[in-house]
């Protein structure tokens, strides 16, 4: 007897139905991959998802990637190979005294969706709200000694600082903290923009939709007051994995992506059809830090021996595939405070390292290095391990995932910070040296100063350089600060790395000098 229950569950499939199904699948598979390849759409990779539309919650470049497309600032970075800024909303802007900056807005710059003209009140609202404690702005430190904006007319105002703050021109105004949002729209939204799409925008693009975990879809903003954007649609696509992004570019699914140093030579020598590669010196800084307060490294000769046993050129070759240059400090070339050379040459001197250990009365030294679980840093550690053995130093490598690693040196997260030995880190950077040295002052111990480096002179110079407006004097001060870091034996500077961008030759990308994209300035070729 046929089992009717089973028959209902598993109806039989005829051969004809099977063929029809296969034919349908075949038809689906023949659909064109790049249906949008009509030149009016731009696909740009974002390596993580920006948090939201409100600058209060911004924490890094990913938000800037989005904000650059939809919002404006008084001034913004000029695309190209040299760090400079240009007027955006500002018709004129100038330092009128060491603690004041006067600005006048261009006339007729509009918010979209009926929110009227951009006024000085919007500028005041946007900047002052970072200073309100309850707003919990994540980027408040970028504004330094800024106190408030004084509105002097519908289109003019004065930016006030408590004391001179040189980075206001390089970090605050042209970056996240300088983003101008609409006062009326934000107040209507309850003081913070948490809507699915922003109620109003001022940039060349507007948000059509945010596909959570996948992409931000932007359309050309027809109400943009400047030169209309070149693309009808821009997709900021979240691709976490670098290899996946590279494959997506090769397949033509993204038009612009950064790639890892491992791929630079291969793609540089043999780029995929219709693709170009451009390599930029980056601003990041990678370094090996040594906890100078650890009893194991009490004797400075031990610290110096470790520094002499690290061969930076070998690391460049093995981990950075010879596409990056050794760093001379934490401040990259092209910025105020860049040092021409290090105190200890980048090449290792194993004999000198051995000699220093002997002087310190150490036969063999067992030490530990904590690194992030990325290929570059684990390779660096392995190269170091092999090299240090030549000087009689046994290096143990501890690999951590991101969440665990970034709290190793944080006092609020347990006692591990006190026992740290060596760490390998990369910090991001903005185009002002203040941003680099800020992490190594004494008050950062137990927070981001994992080397526990403490120098009164360094702290004083950091404080003074903040307010120093003479570029030559500032340059000298920051050089001296890096000398102090190196003299402590707590730092071996590795490299600033590179930003390698792979892009379709149907577009003309615009980037900052460090290679980070300014999507609002991208054009069709």
């Amino acid at each position, binding site marked *: 007897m046929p089992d009717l229950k089973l028959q209902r569950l598993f109806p039989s499939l005829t051969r004809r139905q099977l063929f029809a199904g296969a034919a349908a699948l075949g038809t689906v598979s023949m659909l064109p991959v790049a249906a949008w390849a009509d030149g009016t759409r731009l696909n740009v990779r974002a390596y993580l998802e920006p948090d939201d539309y409100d600058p209060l919650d911004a924490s890094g470049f990913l938000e800037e990637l989005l904000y650059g497309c939809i919002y404006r600032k008084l001034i913004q970075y000029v695309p190209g190979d040299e760090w400079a800024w240009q007027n955006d909303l500002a018709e004129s802007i100038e330092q009128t005294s060491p603690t004041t900056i006067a600005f006048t807005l261009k006339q007729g710059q509009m918010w979209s969706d009926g929110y009227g003209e951009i006024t000085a009140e919007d500028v005041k609202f946007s900047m002052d709200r970072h200073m309100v404690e309850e707003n919990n702005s994540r980027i408040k430190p970028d504004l330094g000694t800024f106190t408030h904006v004084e509105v002097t007319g519908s289109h003019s105002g004065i930016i006030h600082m408590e004391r001179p703050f040189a980075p206001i021109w390089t970090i605050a105004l042209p970056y996240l903290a300088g983003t101008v949002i609409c006062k009326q729209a934000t107040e209507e939204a309850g003081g913070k923009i948490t809507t699915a799409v922003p109620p109003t925008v001022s940039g060349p693009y507007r948000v059509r939709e945010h596909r959570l975990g996948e992409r931000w879809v932007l359309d050309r903003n027809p109400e943009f007051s400047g030169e209309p954007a070149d693309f009808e649609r821009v997709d900021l*696509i979240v691709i976490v994995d670098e290899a996946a992004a590279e494959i997506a570019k090769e397949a033509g699914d993204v038009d612009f992506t950064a790639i890892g140093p491992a791929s630079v030579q291969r793609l540089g020598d043999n780029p995929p059809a219709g693709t170009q590669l451009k390599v930029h010196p980056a601003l990041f800084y990678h370094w090996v830090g040594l906890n100078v307060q650890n009893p194991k490294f009490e004797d400075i000769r031990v610290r110096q021996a470790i520094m002499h046993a690290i061969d930076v050129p070998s690391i460049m070759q093995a981990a950075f595939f010879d596409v990056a240059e050794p760093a001379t400090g934490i401040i990259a070339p092209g910025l105020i405070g860049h040092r021409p050379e290090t105190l200890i040459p980048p090449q290792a001197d194993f004999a000198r390292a051995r000699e220093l250990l002997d002087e310190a009365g150490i036969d063999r030294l067992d030490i530990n290095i904590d690194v992030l679980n990325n290929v570059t840093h684990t390779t660096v550690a392995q190269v170091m391990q092999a090299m240090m053995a030549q000087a009689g130093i046994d290096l143990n490598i501890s690999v951590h995932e991101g969440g665990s690693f970034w709290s190793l040196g944080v006092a609020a997260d347990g006692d591990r910070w006190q026992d740290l030995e060596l760490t390998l880190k990369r910090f991001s950077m903005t185009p002002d040296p203040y941003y680099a040295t800020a992490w190594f002052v004494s008050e950062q111990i137990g927070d981001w100063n994992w080397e526990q480096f403490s120098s009164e002179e360094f702290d004083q110079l950091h404080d003074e350089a903040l307010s120093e407006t003479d570029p030559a004097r500032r340059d000298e001060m920051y050089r001296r600060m890096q000398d102090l870091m190196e003299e402590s034996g707590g730092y071996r500077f590795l490299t600033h790395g590179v930003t390698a961008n792979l892009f379709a030759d149907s577009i003309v990308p615009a980037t900052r000098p460090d290679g980070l994209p300014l999507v609002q300035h991208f054009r069709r070729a």
Partner: protein
Amino acid sequence: MLQYTLQRIALALGIVFVAISILYTVMITLPGDPTTVLLGPRATPELRAAFRANLGLDNPVHVQIAQFWGRIASGDLGTDYNRNRPVAEAVFSALPHTMALVFGAIVWSAVLGIMLGAFSADNRNSWIDRVTAVLSVGFLAAPSFVVALYSLLLFSVTLRWFPTIGAGEPGDILNRLYHLALPSFAIGLAWVGYVARIVRAAMLETLGENYIRTARAFGLPRRTVIYNYALRVAILPAVQVLGVGIGGLLSSAVFAEIVFSRPGIGSLIYDSVSGRNYPVVMGSMLVAIGFFVTCALIADLVNAALDPRHRTRS
């Protein structure tokens, strides 16, 4: 059957409760301060302290777990630290993508696996059977992330048949299916081999049963006996395995969603764990574990409905 169903549901709820409580404990005892990761380097110590206090991260572990279950009992999955939005919104916008991926993989791999297994059993010890055996074991041995990368290189970069990233345009079913094809192929391939081996073994056992011999003795066509009678019984073990296998597919989905840059529960959990975004991790895990336990429960109930011996044994 009702008593059996109620027992299974109670067991499923117990599993969810224990699994989530253990996970919560493990997660918050992991090194890694969420405020450091979430607020970025420029956040002031005062802001970080306020953030910790506001989120109850200063409370003892058992209090945090109790608070978590209290929220769940009132239907609240919590708030995403990063984006100030309800966790439910993040989770339930990601879930359909993962379900589509997992069920897509299950469906195609089950259909192909069952066909291969049945065909193999029908041609036992022939060269076809041996080739199928080699293929099945080969599929089983291939890690899904390797299959994902190689299928991307072959079908997307070289042949340009399929897209490499994304989940397709919302509202366009064909486009969605088109974007689903390669990821579901990558995570389903191993299951083809697994299902084929299970079905083959079950078929061989079934083909030795009396009722099959009787059917043959009555002169029923060979194909009818094998594919209409034997196969219907032989796929029962595969149904059970597929139900439990959803768990395995969920973990494969993490890789597939990252490699193919698809939204989904897998990539949401991955990002949230890295960022120590506890509410999102727990909300996602609750839904993922609930999804897995529900699938296993359904498989149990289907099996019990199809084969009364299961519920009798229980």
